[in-house]
């Protein structure tokens, strides 16, 4: 009898249904007061097609501090609290463009199973080389005649680099999630995670600088239909 009871509880834990998205949201901004590091100029002379695509010098996007004292390109996502919930995979693809020998967007997220449409808007050869560990790494050539290729990642994975070995300055950061609650801060340093079900979550803010600007996490409780707000401050950690 004891065993029976044990089994029923065990099995019950295994059965989880697809849960509908909620009505709450999490908003805030990523603060970075003071001056960021100088943005390095990228020398694209090695490929005339690249340098011809720009009239002004291109700056490295590794740390971009916005005019209003916020940090751009910070990947904000729910990192804990969604256990057992399943979410539908959007049919809309995520677009990664190789344009002017830079990647747009510079930091991005995608759901496992969602299509990534990789575009080549340049009239030159790129190769697109993922450094993913959980997902199978890929690396293929995209000559100028190939304008589009689709790819899907199977498993969720922390941010990893995708780069072009032909143009060593080209780098973009991708992260794969098993839920839709992620976003990247924009020119105003703000972020919004929408349709969040009520609950208590850990929200993570990640920046590509790694140890120099280590990722931060905050707890937040979302009640149904309400907007919870929280701000990350990367000023302290910067040296």
């Amino acid at each position: 009898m004891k065993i029976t009871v044990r089994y029923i509880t065990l099995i019950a834990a295994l059965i989880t249904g697809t849960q509908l998205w909620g009505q709450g949201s999490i908003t805030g901004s990523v603060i970075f007061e003071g001056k960021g590091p100088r943005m390095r100029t990228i020398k694209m002379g090695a490929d005339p097609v690249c340098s011809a695509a720009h009239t002004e010098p291109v700056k490295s996007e590794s740390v971009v501090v916005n005019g209003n004292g916020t940090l751009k390109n910070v990947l904000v996502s729910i990192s804990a609290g969604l256990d057992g919930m399943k979410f539908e995979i959007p049919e809309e693809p995520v677009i990664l463009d190789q344009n002017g020998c830079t990647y747009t967007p510079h930091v991005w997220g995608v759901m496992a199973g969602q299509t990534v449409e990789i575009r080549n808007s340049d009239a030159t050869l790129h190769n697109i080389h993922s450094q993913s560990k959980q997902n199978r790494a890929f690396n293929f050539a995209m000559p100028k005649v190939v304008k589009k290729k689709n790819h899907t990642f199977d498993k969720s994975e922390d941010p990893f680099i995708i780069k072009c070995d032909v143009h060593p300055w080209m780098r973009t950061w991708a992260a794969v999630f098993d839920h839709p609650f992620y976003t990247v801060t924009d020119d105003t340093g703000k972020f919004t995670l929408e349709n969040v079900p009520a609950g208590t979550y850990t929200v993570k803010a990640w920046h590509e600088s790694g140890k120099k600007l280590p990722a931060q996490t905050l707890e937040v409780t979302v009640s149904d239909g309400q907007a919870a707000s929280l701000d990350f401050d990367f000023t302290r950690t910067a040296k």
Partner: protein
Amino acid sequence: MDLKKEERYYQPDELHRWFGISSVLFLASIIIMFANDYIREWKGHQRAFREADVALTRANIESAAVDDAVKTELEAAVATAEAQLAADQSQLDELDSLKTVAEGEFYWANMNFMGTTADLDEARYLLEHGLTERHGEMEARKHFEEVTAKVKLFKLQSEGFQAEIDGYDAETTTLQARHKKASSEMNELLADLSVFERKLLLIDPEAMSMANRVANVMRDLPVLDFLAPSIKIQQIIVNDIRDDVNFAVVPKVDRCTSCHLGIDNTGFADAPQPYTTHPNLDLFIISASSHPMNEFGCTSCHAGRGRGTSFTSAGHMPADAEQAREWEEKYDWEPLAFWEEKMFPAQYSEAGCLKCHASEPTIRGAEKLTLGLTIMEKASCFGCHQIDRFDDWDRRGPNLALVSGKLTKEFAFKWIRNPRSFRHNTWMPAFFNQTNNSSAEDKRRTDTEIHAIVHYLFENSGDVQLPSTVRSGSVSRGQALFESVGCQGCHVIEPEPLAIETDLDRMFQRHGPNLIGMGSKATPEWVYTWIRDPQFYNPDSRMPNLRLTSREAADITAYLTGLTNDRFDGTAAPALNEDALADVAFKWLVKNASEVDAKSRVDEMDLNEQLLFVGKRSILHYGCFSCHNIPGFEDSKPIGTPLTLEGSKPTHNLDFGSVHEIEHTNYNWFEAKLTNPRIFDRDKVKPYDERLRMPNFNLSRTEVEAVTTALLGLAKSNVHADKMADGKMDDLIINRGMTIIKDYNCQGCHIINGQGGQIVDIIGDPNLSPPNLNTQGAKAKSDWLYKFFKSPTTIRPNLAVRMPTFPLADDQWNDIIRAFQFSAGATTTFETPHSSAGKTNSTFVGAYLASKDMGDCAKCHVMAGKNPTNARTDWAPDLALAKDRLRPEWIVDWLRDPQAIMPGTKMPQPFIPSKADVEFEGAEEYFPQAVIRMAGDDEALLESLRDYIYSVGEK
């Protein structure tokens, strides 16, 4: 005639009473017998398991349950289709009757057709006959034509009726299609569910019909349960693995699954024992694995008594004392007496792998066992203990034939006395200052012995020609070279012990000695000479030659000899005690001579003679020659117990001495012995030369457990050759080559068969590290590979690390090459040469795909000596080397998906145009006609790229 009581020789009343009592006793004993049988341990487990299985199946049904809305919708669809079908029934009936009529017509026409076909043969014969005989041919021809016309007519008729039948069939199918589709969708939807539901019907009384329910109870009732019980012993009989039960060898019979009921069912992964799922179903138990339960049983790997049906009689053994206590309480457990092959406690379960995987240098999936065997290799256990597996192995320790050219006597003394005072993680074990020889009196003797050993070694050492001076080198350049050129494939420089556990990767990284304190050990002249040519000093050394220039060697020498061990240098060796020396010499002599003779022999010897005599006796006593080549001991025999079948040695043959705090089992003995080799001398009074002398290797807990696992694995086995993992020639070839590969630590730098390559972690980028040798046998041409091994040349100009020259003989290189080939399944020795000559079109298309706008190969690859323009660290192999180096089939595989062969490689998948890629407005401007024609044929395009690569550098 009625006899009186008194007239009988017995008392009827008494007899009746006894008869009564005994029948009650018999009845009681029969009841007890049945009751006892009914409550047997395994029966209880089966009852409990069935309950759990019912619960799991119910839960499975629940989770397989279909969304009600979907189900209702489908049911409605099925119902509509059924209604439609009913409405169409009259039409279907009519079609059916029409079909029957048509079939009759068809039969008639077809019979006519076949009949006239026979007539035609006759008419043809008559015609031919008439033509030959030149008589009546006109008539015959007329007849022939008539019959031909008839055949044609009947054929047309029968074809017409067949078409009519097909038409009715098609109409019927159309009318039925909707219903068929709806019901098959329904079945598909409920497929999982019905499997579980069917299972539940068999095991869950609540789901059964009343009759089945009664039968279900009846069949397992006491006494009746001999008929067809559901609760019964489960057994697996394995004919080609046998148990030796003394005086008979019988097939293995394993009844383990009578209680371990969930062993092959993934649903019981978290269930309590004995129902737990096997933790590694990929490798064991299920029929898709390489060790299916029905072919291997359980005790073939785990040991134990397979026929046992209770916890104790199966020979279960606890992992530790705590588990033993728990078992005693719970199962009334005790170690099974009179059964030597008791089950391996869980931590040693990999021991069971060795008997079938004996010739594999690394046994995949058995990491602990492999670690144990590797430690046995490194520690050179086989030097003193004969072990079949290592029979033809060389001595592992340094050759001491020229030791005076390398070390000082002072160093040698301090080193022998306590090797770890110089290098904390050396494989040289400690012989002295152990628990059975650390008294002041023992030390007086052992210090003297060490002096004598050093004296013997140096007196018998040959001379080595070292340069008188070495050009001065730069320490910083030396360090940079040490860290880039490949030394770290085998060596570390680790001043302090690291708090990390030993594993196979760590062993690869520490294949050679930890090079701390080199400046305290050897002179710059010796180090310089050694690293430039290791075999000059020691022809038997496995250290390869990195072909260092004199300047590079001087730099590395400066770096290494700059590392000193001040604490070691600060202690001095004690002076020789001549009285003690005479005493030791006397003690050896008196063993074979009278006291007077021994005394006079000692007195006759001068100091040198005494030292040489004691030195020689000590080397013999401690077995130094087992690991080191020492002049005068070339043919000496091993001094330890043979270990080939150590795992099968009866425990009563192991001397526990007065050590009573451990359970007397073989694995406890091995663990205690490995942890402290002298422990069983505790509280014993023995003359010095009879004491235990196995040296102390300072093994960690993990290492002790791993070696114990390997020792338990060295056991007798009765496995048929067909079941052995290395029963096939291919496996033996691979294992032979892989053994050399492991011995020379190729996996320190390269990933081979998915293992090794730890230097990649030090270098950081796989693209700047020694290549992953995945598919090597299919990749490189064997004659090229042989030439490369003998004399390595630069393939990858971007690497700072270099392939050294190894001191291997031709047959060893052949073994390695064949191991690569057989591992990759590419076993041909002689091949048709492939060439790009005459393949103009293919080469042209390939060249286009490689051109600047497409693949731009020249961006990274050197092209027939022409270097790419980008940074050297991004360069890739010269494509002109490909035709001599690479097999043509492999190049195509490589181009198809480089990541699959070398994960992490910078080589992108080249652009191979599909039909869609070339079907746009103005494609002709971009692509040559030849490319447009071939687009979409990936194989042909990849081959054309290969043919182009083969043409690079051709005139």
